[in-house]
């Protein structure tokens, strides 16, 4: 029972794999599927760099056991847009607004923004601040990030 077989959908592709019970979803995505767009920062649910969308909801994948994602759908930054000519409007807006410095927090920020916009397509500034409160940026501030999300439409 220390190993479990899990089946899940990641970015539209189906995976089945036997994994150790103890690995987190963040570790699973990075080390088993090599989807290293999901970043691991604090590993304690604070920084939000590992944010992914699980069954439509933003979650911190460092605090989700991979076995818990069995039967579920995961969206990572790789599922939004990988190529320069194929980016998601949120990604375009982050670039246009210069809402990126080192980029480490960006995948998490964008997925939190995606979850927000899926739920309420026209959020105000307060909604955006609440949605991004769990994503820390240590390079710059949040002004451009908020503007980038406001600009997506």
């Amino acid at each position, binding site marked *: 029972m220390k190993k*479990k077989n899990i089946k899940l959908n990641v970015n539209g592709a189906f995976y089945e794999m036997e994994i150790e019970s*103890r690995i987190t979803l963040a570790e699973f995505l990075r080390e088993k599927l090599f989807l290293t767009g999901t970043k691991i920062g604090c590993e304690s649910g604070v920084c939000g760099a590992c944010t992914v969308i699980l069954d439509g909801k933003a979650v911190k994948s460092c605090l989700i*056991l991979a076995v818990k994602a069995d039967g579920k759908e995961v969206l990572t930054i790789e599922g939004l847009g990988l190529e320069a000519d194929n980016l998601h409007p949120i990604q375009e807006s982050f670039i246009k607004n210069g809402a990126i410095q080192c980029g480490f927090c960006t995948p998490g920020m964008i997925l939190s923004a995606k979850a927000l916009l899926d739920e309420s397509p026209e959020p105000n500034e307060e909604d955006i601040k609440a949605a991004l409160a769990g994503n820390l940026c240590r390079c710059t501030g949040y002004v451009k990030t908020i503007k980038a999300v406001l600009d997506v439409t």
Partner: protein
Amino acid sequence: MRNFDYFKPGKITDACSLLSKYGEKAKIIAGGQSLLILMKEKIVCPSCLVDITEIPNLDYIQYDNKGGLRIGALTTHREIESSSLIKERFNVLSEVEKAIASIQIRNVGTIGGNLCHGDPCGDLAPLLIGLEAQVKLTGFESERLVPLEDFFTDYYETVLKEDEILAEIQIPSLLLSGGQWYSKCSPRETDPAIVGVAVVASLESPDGICRKIRIVIGGAGPVPLRSKKAEKRIEGNRLDEKLIEEAAKIVKEEVAPVSDIRGTEEYKREMVELLTKEGITGALEKVKK
């Protein structure tokens, strides 16, 4: 994190029998938003995890005037925060939920898990004790109701027996002419409380005679603490500014905070006094509305 056996039972009785089989080696996992942090730090190293999230009928919010509010233990913070029923009838609970961690954590973390974690700085326990909540504990062949006030026994310890699962939180209907308030002192709004104070009061008449009050403090001892001395001092009296000042001083003396990384004992007492004043005043204003 050390490895463990992972079970995901589909029935509450199966979960209870696993818990009783593995005893203290087992831990229940719901959202896991508190437990996994402790497991990563190797503060808790269970050799068996019983995931209860597949058990049906533990995720609901129901209300009727007679029975009050019933919340299934697996209801997430986000579900409570966004529930129109709770916004309408227990708005204070909705407001407190909004300031717990981040949306990502609230999407996963459950009310039952929050209470069973037994963090003395948790925001929900003081408020729910103020609201006279009870918890339904289901065991392999047992079921009991425990006032939340008696649920916590020490830092991160509760009365839960090895085979028991917290299944439901019950909150009685609010009294008419009542007001509820919770405020916490924390570096940022969504940070854990250094100390937090809940005040639930109801008035006998519009002239301010207090019929009933509960003042509950978190972060100022091993478990959430009711300041019964201050409550007794207030009940039956007119709640004017002088009495509020006096009550807040009593609360400040009655709590037992310890100095730690979050603040010194003196600082916490000062903050408890301040938040108590704010809490009583806030609750009174809500009565008037």
